[in-house]
């Protein structure tokens, strides 16, 4: 607010200033604020058809507020809104240390996301590859352009849905509104140009392609991690109770030998429990990293 910016005289200039004023805020908050603002300005324009855009913008700065004022309101409000997961308190983190991960809801959200991402990843990948191939194939036909627009619209809706999943399971703030369509009175060519010059269209496509390898990796990590750690714990305890050896490791005779003694089995069970916590930590870390990826590629600004 140090430099009194020259007052915006078009809707897009106003939105650009608002975006600048919100720089550094969570991407989802910025997109919410821009959507609210765009909606209000559009209403203002359609309510006053006799006024020019410049005149309306001049009065909007008085009644709606300057971009800087609006940015401040959203920042203040965001700090009081409860997010899906309460922010972890650093003090707690230290008290429980390594095992604290078991009581963190984000861990289970991330674990669920890792298992789910195989299905969503395959679906997104198939959708995008099919859509892209058909779009290129249809490009020479008369239905090529409508099909391309339809495909891009579907990708935007999918990005929004993925955003909702990411926010619910990973706790990263994502847009809370469906993607806004540009105003309908624009010509077909403007729409196409807009869609193709929008970086987010391309980054969303890239995200959906990326989701196949990521989804497979997450799923394998999750399943192998859980199966191995829980299997070792369960197997060791079962062997301890029944007195029979169930775990066989053929290439390592000394390990095999350990598994026939009670202390060896107890060590194994403890190692399995430790491994389980390591898996939980890995899941939480994957969730955090993936949240960053989704925020970077999916949020339309």
């Amino acid at each position, binding site marked *: 607010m140090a430099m009194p910016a020259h007052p915006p005289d078009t809707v897009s200039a106003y939105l650009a200033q608002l975006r600048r004023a919100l720089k550094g805020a969570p991407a989802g908050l910025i997109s919410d604020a821009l*959507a*609210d*603002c765009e909606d209000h300005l559009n209403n203002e324009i359609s309510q006053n058809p006799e006024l020019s855009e410049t005149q309306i913008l001049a009065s909007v700065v008085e009644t709606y*507020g300057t971009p800087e004022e*609006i940015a401040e*309101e959203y920042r203040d409000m965001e700090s*009081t*809104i409860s997010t899906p997961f309460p922010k972890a308190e650093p003090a707690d983190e230290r008290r429980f240390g390594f095992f604290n991960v078991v009581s963190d809801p984000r861990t289970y959200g991330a674990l669920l996301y890792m298992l789910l991402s195989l299905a969503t990843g395959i679906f997104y990948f198939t959708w995008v590859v099919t859509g892209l191939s058909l779009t290129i194939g249809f490009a020479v036909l008369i239905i090529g352009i409508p099909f391309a627009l339809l495909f891009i619209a579907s990708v935007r809706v999918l990005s929004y849905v993925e955003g909702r999943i990411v926010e619910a399971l990973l706790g990263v703030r994502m847009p809370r*509104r469906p993607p806004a369509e540009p*105003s309908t009175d624009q010509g077909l060519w403007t729409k196409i140009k807009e869609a193709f010059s929008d970086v987010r269209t391309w980054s969303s496509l890239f995200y959906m392609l990326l989701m196949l390898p990521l989804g497979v990796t997450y799923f394998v990590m999750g399943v192998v991690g859980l199966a191995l750690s829980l299997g070792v714990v369960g197997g060791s305890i079962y062997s301890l109770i029944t007195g029979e050896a169930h775990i066989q490791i053929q290439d390592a005779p000394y390990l095999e030998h350990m598994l026939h003694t009670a202390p060896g089995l107890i060590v194994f069970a403890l190692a399995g429990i430790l491994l389980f916590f390591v898996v939980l930590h890995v899941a939480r870390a994957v969730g955090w990293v993936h949240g960053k990826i989704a925020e970077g590629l999916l949020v339309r600004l």
Partner: protein
Amino acid sequence: MTEESQYTRKFRKELMAGLSSLVLLAVLARAGREMYGYEIAKAVKAEGEGGLIFKQGAIYPVLRSLNATGLLHSRVEASAFGPPRRYYDITDDGRKALSEWQYAWRDMREFVDDALKAGTVPAGVTPDGHAGAPA
């Protein structure tokens, strides 16, 4: 509001922080139907003596936070032109909060009025600006 000092603006802002929620709940309760953001912004008569008390842009984040705390319910509806509209409606929790907050506000207002009447008018100056009026 152009002549107001930085302190006064900060003071107004702090006053409005809680009251804007009360005002918005009252507007939606009185309307008795769902309304969208722009409609609510127009329904809030925010004209004060020195200009606008409350910027319309500040309504939207408050609506979002009331929605997040469950005092309002919202749904999104695609509109024929422009971006989809978010409609807000007051919930039962919101009505309960409104009736409680009304009492809190009345208590507060009386308390503040009393305090202002009792103490702060400096000796010899009435609100009309006449010097030396008899008490």
